[in-house]
């Protein structure tokens, strides 16, 4: 089973979707139960991965590798190859957890055409998991694109009033980026062929040749930059980085609650994951190029501050949370392009944190919306009087999102800022503004919605959380506390892939170890023993 664990995790949701096709659409109860059972099963089958992965957390290279290169379409060199490292492991666990939570949260929220809804949702789940598992670029691309279709339909069918516009905008925007990426990867494919005489889309194989383009007299810096830009377009749109973020508020506001949770929790992470998995190791010299790097940092900082300022002005709760995502994802990209161990591992951890906190924030907004069918902040006030349990949970998640110490957000943001500070103090000083503003918009929102007396008579009879709703929050709160109180296991999991990245991108970086993750000596000993799949540049 250990050999096929990734395939099992990948296809459990799809199996559920297939089964649902044969359930008549009138039996709503059966559909809900089957969908929830498969979502839970998807989470449960991924749990054995935790101890298994933990045992090999310091081993080099990809783990649980399934399939051999080029076994799918030998004629073009594409293979069904799966495998994970610490980064994808954390994101996969986040995906299975959030997938289950979102499906559970849809129990009463979705009344219309529920069979289709669950079918698309489960298909989406498989698509997202595939993106994080694929070790073949072609396979990755198939999942990356195929996943757009269910998301398009989820927004377009079950969305709000401007759903058609939001859905197509999301689809077109993302497709534009991904076709640019396809062209770039075809270039890498031919480059790899000219270097090695082999046609393959295998990611480890491309890791070997892609970095050489920069130094190749036949192509050189311009080509490498252009290729980096094509990948950047795909990932920056997905993250979304400023100024490619405009699809995000539309999609979030119109999507159904569970769709927003998945969109914010997982889909956006595909962009940051893409930067880490592809942009950095494919083009190490480009990302280290001062011009490129300062642009990336500048865009991240603008996103952090701009997103926070726009959040401050929102009248719609969901839009506020959506813009706060832009700000938080700015931290993640900032960490990536700080290009040191603290920045990178902080960034991955912050991606997980954002999934937990913002996922919870969308659930919180969804719960009020389901009861009152409005998200206008002005409609509310004094909610803590009628829904005390809800108000408490909201407070915890708000604090986690704004980065209060002892909760998860703090650890992520702190590590990123630490990494940034080591590179350039001005960058860190500017980025810190985002933390301050986050406290402002979240606390102000909390004050307006929850404090005071109930002013609107419609809010007097609101029901507090049901057991099912509490259940959706429990795992998120547990995770938030765990990461906040004892993040060491997470950093240990990230240590190996981060060091490997550092070895590729900045082989000369002094002290390539995480001071707060493990003892420097132990860490150095481990890094020394790594036969990396990504060779240091120049070592042919």
């Amino acid at each position, binding site marked *: 089973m250990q050999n096929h664990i990734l395939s099992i995790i990948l296809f459990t949701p799809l199996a559920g979707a297939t089964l649902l096709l044969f359930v008549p659409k009138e039996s709503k109860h059966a559909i809900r139960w089957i969908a929830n059972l498969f979502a839970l099963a998807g989470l449960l089958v991924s749990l054995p991965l935790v101890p298994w992965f933990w045992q090999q957390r310091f081993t080099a290279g990809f783990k649980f590798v399934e399939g051999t290169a080029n076994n*799918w*379409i*030998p*004629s*073009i060199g594409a293979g069904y190859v799966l495998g994970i490292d610490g980064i994808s492991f954390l994101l996969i666990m986040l995906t299975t957890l959030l997938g289950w939570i979102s499906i559970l949260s849809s129990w009463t929220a979705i009344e219309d055409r529920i069979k*289709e809804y669950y079918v698309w949702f489960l298909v989406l789940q498989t698509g997202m998991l595939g993106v994080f598992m694929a070790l073949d670029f072609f396979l990755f*691309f*198939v999942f990356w*694109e*195929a996943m*757009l*279709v269910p998301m*398009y*339909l989820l927004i*377009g*069918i079950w969305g709000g009033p401007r*759903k*058609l516009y939001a*859905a*197509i905008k999301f*689809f*077109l925007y993302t*497709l*534009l980026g991904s*076709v*640019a990426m*396809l*062209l770039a990867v*075809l*270039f890498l*494919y*031919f480059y790899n062929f000219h270097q090695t005489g082999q046609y393959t889309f295998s990611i480890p194989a491309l890791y070997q040749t892609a970095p050489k383009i920069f130094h190749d007299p036949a192509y050189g810096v311009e080509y490498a930059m252009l290729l980096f830009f094509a990948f950047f377009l795909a990932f920056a749109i997905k993250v979304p980085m400023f100024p490619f973020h405009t699809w995000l508020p539309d999609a979030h506001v119109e999507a159904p609650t569970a769709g927003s949770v998945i969109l914010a929790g997982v889909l956006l992470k595909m962009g940051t994951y893409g930067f880490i998995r592809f942009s950095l190791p494919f083009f190490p010299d480009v990302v280290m190029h001062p011009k490129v790097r300062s642009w990336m940092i500048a865009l991240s900082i603008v996103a952090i501050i701009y997103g926070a300022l726009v959040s401050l002005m929102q009248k719609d709760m969901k839009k506020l949370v959506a813009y706060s995502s832009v700000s938080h994802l700015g931290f993640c990209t900032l960490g990536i392009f700080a290009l040191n161990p603290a920045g990178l591992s902080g960034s991955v951890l912050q991606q997980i944190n954002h999934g937990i906190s913002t996922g919870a924030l969308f659930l919180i907004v969804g719960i009020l919306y389901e009861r009152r069918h409005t998200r206008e902040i002005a409609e509310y006030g004094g909610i803590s009087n009628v829904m005390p349990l809800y108000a408490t949970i909201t407070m915890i998640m708000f604090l986690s999102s704004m980065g209060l110490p002892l909760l998860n957000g703090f650890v992520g943001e702190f590590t990123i800022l630490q990494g940034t500070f080591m590179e350039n103090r001005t960058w860190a000083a500017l980025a810190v503004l985002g933390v301050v503003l986050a406290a402002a918009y979240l606390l102000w929102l909390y004050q307006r919605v929850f404090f005071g007396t109930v002013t609107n008579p419609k809010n007097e009879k609101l029901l507090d959380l049901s057991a099912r709703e509490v259940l959706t929050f429990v795992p998120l709160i547990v995770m938030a506390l765990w990461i906040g109180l004892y993040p060491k296991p997470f950093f240990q999991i990230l240590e190996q892939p981060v060091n490997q990245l550092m070895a590729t991108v900045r082989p000369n970086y002094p002290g390539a170890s995480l001071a707060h993750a493990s003892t420097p000596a132990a860490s150095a000993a481990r890094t020394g023993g790594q036969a990396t799949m990504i060779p240091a540049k120049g070592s042919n």
Partner: protein
Amino acid sequence: MVSVAQMFEASDYLMSLPILLLSIFALGILIMDLMMPEEMKWVNAVTAFVGVLLATCGVVRIQHALDLSHRTWVPAFVGSMVIDHFTLYFWYLFLAGTAVAILMSVHYMDEEREQHGEFYALMLFSVVGMMSMAAGFDIVLIFIGLELMAICTYVLVGFLRRDRRSNEAALKYLLLGAFSSGIFAYGLSLLYGLTGSTNLAVIRERLTHDLAQSQNHADPVAVLALVTVAAGLLFKIAAVPFHQWAPDAYEGAPTSITGFMSVAVKAAAWAMLLRVLGMGLYPLRLIWVPLLIFVSLATMTAANLAALTQNNLKRLLAYSSIAHVGYMLLGVVAYGSAIENAAMTDGVKGILLYLLVYTFMNLGAFAVIASLRRRDVIGDDIDDFAGLFARAPTEAVLMLVFLLSLAGIPPLAGFWGKYFIFLSLIETRHYALAAVAVLYAVFGLYYYMRIASAMFMRQALDTEPVRAGGAMWGALWVSLAATLAIGVYPEPFIRMVNWSLNATQNPAFANLIK
């Protein structure tokens, strides 16, 4: 000089077996139809279908004979026909497209109350024409095949006698088609005048020789011949600026014929284009490559922009098929500008695979439109698709699959066509062209998704359920199975395309590489 005895080979009859079979069946249908009572007309469709199946068996037989002789190509009829894997590939393609189109027609022509035997006979005759075009290695045979196919199609387009749109479409198509055939024939006659031969291999040789003599300065007459021939070819594949007939003809024609035209007729035109431009006029590639770059850019631009605002589905799919031609032309550009052997075949490979996947996904989309046809409803307006999911969930989901495939979303078949075209462009260093092409692919998604959003996200205007007949379901499921199978596991199909090009020995492509 060929002796008289050599002109009559018994193997010629084997090599033209599918052509003969189809002709016999077509004539048989015409005679049977006279004796058939009104309610028995479906027998004609069955006969035509059997004819197609038998013709397929004939092609298999030829392939077998070819394999046994350990040759990859044989000439027939004194070299005016060449039977190679390229020919066989196209023959299979025509027969598959025709079989699905016949399945679509049975129920649809009943709804139109135009169930006549001639319909199927004309379809079979036009396939005979297509087969001659694909196998033709002599410009006279190619031209005769083209005219046979075109004349049958003119009639088929106007087959709905009582429908004014159909009549108008047929007349427009006839006039413009005849005009373009004239230009094409003019170009061919110039070629004959220049080279003194009608055989493509000889034409190629003489042109190469002449170019070498004049230090690569092409003879103005050769350029004129090239331009006129290219205009004729581009008209037949409906590339801008010779595309105006397509939206009208597609809209007016019976829906099953629209499907048939957009796949089989178009594939035949492509076979002809690859033979004539790729083989005969290959020496002039320095002239036709820039020409085709311009044409393909214009085609993608005009078709994608026009498709954005169409409300009639058949028109929309007509523009989309013009746009697809634009992508495919880029494959010819890659072929013409390649220096390496592999890069050359990659462009053509892209076109062949594109035609294969396009056959199924486009026929599937037209089959869904045809299944909506009822006595009083045309069923080809975008409003007729509103809320289709509520009325006919299966059809709606099938249509979604076909549309996504047309848009080129993996893992569906349509993606592979685009993939190989982009691949060949990157391989031949046409980076800017590739960038423009992918940009238009995004445009494409928008208009395909307009249909999808009408089906899934709008309320139904019409609540009557859709009733498709058994044969129609056959057409739909075959298209779906092919679209999914090619999409998820393209390996055997890519091998088939490689086989059809058989790059090392094929006279059409191989001996160019010297």
